[in-house]
């Protein structure tokens, strides 16, 4: 049975096209069921239909129906090993905007579990999940942060190790700061204070994190009580001066300044035990880690190629199955006929003959079966299968 993939992704389709075919998990599963033996993978970067069979026209029509127009110029169609290789690259994160991002593996798993795939797609998706895990285990593609907020959190860990119990002062109630604070919070840090020019905004964000809202003019008072300062205001001047930082500190103070213009006086970096990173520093760190991801992607591509070849070999071995089944059925039929001709035998004698002929048949057919399976997928495999069909008259009727 052949494998077909029809889809669109961020490589070829702009967001205004992708958003029209983007589906919630339940809708994606319903689309897959409508197409029969299919799996629908829909994320913000792609909507792809994997089908067992050659019905790519039906799949394309389904996507076009969702898009409300033709997708002929942006949709791609892949078959057989090319389709398998594509899914393996997707689950490995190699087809993502940020190489090695891990969210996609969960999305592939969800799509697979929501669908009701037949043996071919079942094997394909199970192997795709294994490929995703293998790539992340055997390469360092997913180890480094790929965004400014995650880099800031990783740097804080580089100073403090475990962030559990570390107290954070968030300065500014903007979206970017909130995002970076969430990243720190998910790694165990406590957002202790939120400071903002507008106290209402500070209160709103503080409530979300279970923190205490404070005024911008009170910052110096709280700097001695925190381990991390995360600043992202729209203030035109520095909101934290070097003289605001307490001189005698037992623990290091890590300051993340993602505001432009900068919020923290660069002189803070010169203070003992203080580490200050601004947006340029963080972007330089991210650029460096992305280059690592790209380098690791080469190794990941080799793993994907290896797994694709394995899948291809498995799929080819399926070609031999009908011939082997027909050969065994033919032999069994002949045996039954001959046993019927034996006439009057008592049950003990019949059992002996049946056992002997059964064993003889198995021994005779064992080697041809193995050879047919081994040769499947090779050029010799089709010749062998054809020879068996002709020699034994399989499918000719008697």
């Amino acid at each position, binding site marked *: 049975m052949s494998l077909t993939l029809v889809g669109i992704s961020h490589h070829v389709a702009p967001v205004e096209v992708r958003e029209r075919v983007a589906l919630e998990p339940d809708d994606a599963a319903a689309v897959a069921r409508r197409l029969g033996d299919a799996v629908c993978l829909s994320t913000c970067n792609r909507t792809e239909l994997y089908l067992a069979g050659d019905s790519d026209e039906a799949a394309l029509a389904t996507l076009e129906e969702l898009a409300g127009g033709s997708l002929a110029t942006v949709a791609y169609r892949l078959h057989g090993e090319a389709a398998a290789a594509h899914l393996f690259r997707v689950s490995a994160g190699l087809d993502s905007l940020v190489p090695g991002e891990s969210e996609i593996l969960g999305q592939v798993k969800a799509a697979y579990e929501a669908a009701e795939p037949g043996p071919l797609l079942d094997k394909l998706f199970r192997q795709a999940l294994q490929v995703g895990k293998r790539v992340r285990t055997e390469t360092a593609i997913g180890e480094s942060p790929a965004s400014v907020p995650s880099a800031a959190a990783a*740097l804080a860990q580089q*100073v*403090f*190790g475990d962030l559990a119990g570390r107290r954070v002062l968030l300065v500014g109630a903007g979206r970017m700061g909130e995002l970076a604070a969430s990243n720190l919070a998910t790694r165990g840090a406590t957002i202790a204070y939120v400071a903002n020019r507008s106290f209402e905004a500070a209160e709103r964000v503080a409530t979300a994190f279970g923190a205490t809202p404070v005024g911008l003019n009170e910052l110096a008072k709280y700097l001695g009580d925190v381990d991390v300062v995360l600043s992202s205001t729209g203030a035109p001047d520095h909101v934290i001066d070097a003289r605001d930082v307490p001189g005698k500190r037992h*623990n290091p103070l890590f300051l993340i300044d993602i505001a432009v213009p900068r919020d923290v006086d660069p002189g803070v970096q010169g203070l003992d035990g203080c*580490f200050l990173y601004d947006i340029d*520093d963080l972007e330089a760190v991210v650029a*460096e880690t992305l280059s690592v991801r790209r380098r690791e992607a080469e190794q990941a591509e080799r793993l994907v190629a290896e797994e694709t070849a394995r899948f291809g070999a498995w799929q080819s071995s399926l070609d031999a199955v009908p011939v082997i089944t027909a050969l065994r059925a033919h032999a069994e039929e002949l045996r039954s006929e001959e046993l019927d001709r034996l006439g009057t035998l008592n049950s003990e004698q019949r059992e002996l003959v049946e056992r002997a002929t059964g064993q003889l048949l198995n021994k005779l057919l064992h080697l041809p079966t193995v050879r047919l399976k081994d040769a499947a997928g090779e050029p010799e495999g089709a010749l062998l299968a054809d020879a068996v069909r002709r020699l034994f008259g399989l499918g000719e009727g008697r």
Partner: protein
Amino acid sequence: MIELLFWPVLVGYGEAALAYASPRGDRLATWGVRLGWLAQTALLSVQAAHAEGFPWGTWAGSLNLFVWFVVGTYLIWGCRPRYRLLGLAVMPLAAILFLVARVGGGTSSGQKSHYGNLFLTLHVGCVLAAFAGFTLAAALAGLYLLEERRLKRRAADILRLRMPPLATLDALMRRTIAVAVPFLTVGLIVGIARLQRNGGGVDALMVATVLTWLLYASFLVMRPTGRHAARFALVGFALVIVVRVVLEGTHLS
């Protein structure tokens, strides 16, 4: 037998030193450390079995034992992938010192000392165990200062060439010193007690060792952290070097 065991130790430690220099050689290095240390343990056991007294009474013998302590402590504290740089600092030193011990005859068998077994085991064993701890603490302090410098300079590759977090290095360094100081205390008490019982003069090595003890004891009392603790540990290690390398020949024989 001794000859048979010498080479696996050197090969193990040497292989580990080289493997730590390679970005993906952590696993190989760890095995080098483990196998080398096991071989050295066997070598020390054979020496102990063949000796008539305490077999590591000479400067070379004590160097052999010192290397075993250093690598053993490293195995306990730091033989993990993120401590690759620690291995890179410790293992070449271990390989070189082991070779020096060999050249000085410290890895041969049949040695004997005119001192009693119990005295030497307690005195030399405890002092060497403490010095091994101080050596490792100094390596951790070096790593701390290096990592702090990279963070201060905002090195773009800080997350690519990842080292242990500053807080971890700091805690590990202070813990290592806290474990090592009691060993040095016991070693010194045994040495002083014997000196008082049998008489004899005070030599330069004894004075330097007491100074070392005073320095590390004040470390425990003052409880410095961060950069100050790291510098403290390095100054202490300078004294250890003086005791182990410069003055060693003036004391044990």
